[in-house]
């Protein structure tokens, strides 16, 4: 559906533009909190057994020495299509790094890579505590288009394209939309990170 090469090419292109036209921000000088409603927009092998529900995506973002650092989480419930397949709640926790370029009319385009931990909590009384929890490493890319509608308040649309490194690799494509607010970091926080 989405070619890996094309995604990497877009990231490199955006990073190159961002380096040519850098936005001057000191590392950890600001924080942006983003809250989104999120939904997958692809089908993978698990779609044969589970249906996804609407989920949420939270992101903290801060300028780094190069580009921006992101820490985020996507939470999403899945319902089994049959009793054999217990419902589960996905929590995908990730850290990413990327770059952003500014366009006219206060539009911003971000692209980056992300590494994460994909945790699944199964809801079934028949499972032991050990069996109820599964987790696996995940890696991917993400893109975001945002617009600063008023000072430091952003409307954003983003996509996360991730590969879950299970024995049979699973691809998840998420589409998210929401609001973000950016603020100056308190001094103690800047000191901490520096």
């Amino acid at each position, binding site marked *: 559906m989405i070619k890996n090469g094309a995604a990497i090419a877009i990231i490199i292109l955006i990073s190159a533009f961002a380096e040519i036209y850098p936005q001057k921000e000191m590392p950890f000088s600001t924080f942006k909190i983003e809250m989104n409603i999120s939904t997958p927009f692809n089908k993978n092998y698990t779609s044969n057994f589970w249906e996804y529900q609407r989920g949420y995506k939270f992101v903290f973002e801060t300028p780094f020495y190069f580009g921006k650092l992101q820490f985020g989480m996507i939470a999403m419930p*899945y319902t089994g299509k049959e009793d054999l397949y217990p419902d589960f709640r996905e929590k995908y926790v990730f850290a990413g790094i990327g770059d952003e370029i500014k366009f006219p009319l206060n539009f911003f385009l971000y692209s980056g890579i992300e*590494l994460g931990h994909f945790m699944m909590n199964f809801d079934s009384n028949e499972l032991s505590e050990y069996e109820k929890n599964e987790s696996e490493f995940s890696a991917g890319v993400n893109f975001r288009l945002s617009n600063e509608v008023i000072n430091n308040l952003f409307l954003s649309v983003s996509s996360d394209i991730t590969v879950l*490194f*299970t*024995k*049979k690799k699973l691809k998840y494509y998420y589409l998210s939309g929401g609001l973000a607010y950016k603020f100056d970091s308190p001094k103690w926080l800047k000191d*901490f990170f*520096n």
Partner: protein
Amino acid sequence: MKYILIFILIFQNYLFAQQNPDPAVQIITEEMIKQSGITSAAEILSLADRWNTITIDGSTNFFSANNLSTYSRQNAIVMIDGEEINIGIFDVQNLNLLPLTINQIDYVELLSTPQIYNGKFIQNGLIHIHTKTPGKGLSFHAAGSVGDETGDPGPLVFTKESTPNVDKLSQTYSAGINAASDEWQLKGSIKHEEYFETDPAINDRISFLNKDDNKTKDVSYFINLGIKAFNGNHRFTGAVTSNDDYFFFAPSGNEIPVKQQLRHLGINGNFLFSKIGVNYAASLSVNELGYLNNSHSVNFDFGEQQLLFNAEIFYRADYLKAAVGTGFQRSTAVTSQNLIDKNNELRNLYGRIDLFPSENISQSFGMFVSKYYDEKNLKGFISSLWKINRGSIISTAFSFSEINLAEENNFIYWRRQGYRIDSLNVNMELPGNFNAKKIFTADLNYRFTIDSLVSMDIGTNFRSFSDFYAERQYFQYDTTTSTFNSATDVYSNQYLKVLGASAGINFSLSKKSSVKIFYNYRKNLNGSNLLKQEWEKFPEHNVSLRINFNPFDNFGIAAGLKYFSSMLWYNYIYSEYQSRAKYKTKIKPGLLAELSSGLWMWNKKIWINVLLRNLFNEPEQYHPAGADLDLRLYLQAHLYFNSVLE
């Protein structure tokens, strides 16, 4: 061979320059350890240029320094701050038993040529870990890490696509407290490490004996007191490690559940009186393979209590340093069995001279005589280093050793004394006589420093092994129990000549980035088949590439690429067929990438690191019965509060 050594000693005409770095000595610094994202002591050897390492379980290693030994006779000397720690038992040295934590390490010194060091004859390499000197006042440190291997079934565990769970690899925690003043320092730490056997190739085997889970658990306590007194420095060390482990016991071919206990109490130090001084070391340790609950009640019923003592007197002048010393080592078998002799006593006498006639050239040589009852064995070395000009250094090292079975102090030695494992079917045939092994080694290294940014290393080495013994084993695979078994026939009079070569280049692209490439080559020359087969377990070619990029003071990225050629384990030739190629004789070449990124925070009080190993998820296996490791993710965090209360 003795006469060759004496010939070289007399006629060698260039001398060793002490102030120049010897290319045969490798220093692995704390910074290098951090850049590579290493989380345990065993992983440090992955940075050693001239050492081969393999792993069966993914967390512990078998190693060989600079073509000096096989994996089955690794026997390197391991020290912490000058204190020898006896982690080896039955030819297995698990570096994770060392009681120190990864964030206590200042640097690791690796010696890869035979020589006398701290009263020991270093035959198979030295791993000397130097811990950090604490700042004045009270300091605290802590660390934690978690490792995860990819390849879980994920949600598909509930479907017909379900596969075994490989899940978590490791989790480690440690904490320490240091206190220091001008005249003394006290270091104490505790370490808790858990490693998970996740690979189906091992789990099936372990499950046969195991009653509980697939976890190994290692808990260590370490205390070290250093004082300056009586014209010298003196260190007292106490350490306890308890490790619930699956001990890979080669004569059986399987992992045996053990509660391994290592207890160590020691003192070392020196007295200095102008140009004359005394170095001393004494320690008492116990390394025990205790019983761990298992379904077949397999019990080694064996431990080794070791008493070590060494003292040497030395003289230092501008142009020379000379030392004469004597040592005593008594290993006592701790077992309920009746043995012919439960004590293995070795005494030694040695001398070493380092000459420094000029700034650019100098030479070291030494003789070491060990005595086991009436049997005396001689070891000697001569090493030289010549700084030809500002950028060029040549070093040479030659050695000759006679080693008897008592010095190896391994399972075969104790078997000869009558030791048996009743609960384990170990069928071993020993030859009537074991002659002392004879080893001749020659190393030539050349380091060329073009400027402050580029340096190159070229080296070659030759080994001649004679009067060796070696085990012949052909493992049979039992499909019902998923375990191996084999009779072991030990043959003496084995011999082999091995040639090795290495080349490396180290260049700094800028102050913030550096690249290092290192290549190792090994070739068996003529020899007996059994010993040749032992050496076929090493790859002929090893190449490593490491790129470090530190764009900012508190942030760095390191990338590594490693290639090794194929390895052959003939002793699994039948089990390959019996297991339907689950366990293969030939290990395929590996091309492995890793990426590590570290960040310091809060004025260097917190350090966090992310490491990805086997980045492209290529096949990664080192031993026929070992794990095939997939892409792994490691996260670790360190915390340092230095000199908080002065």
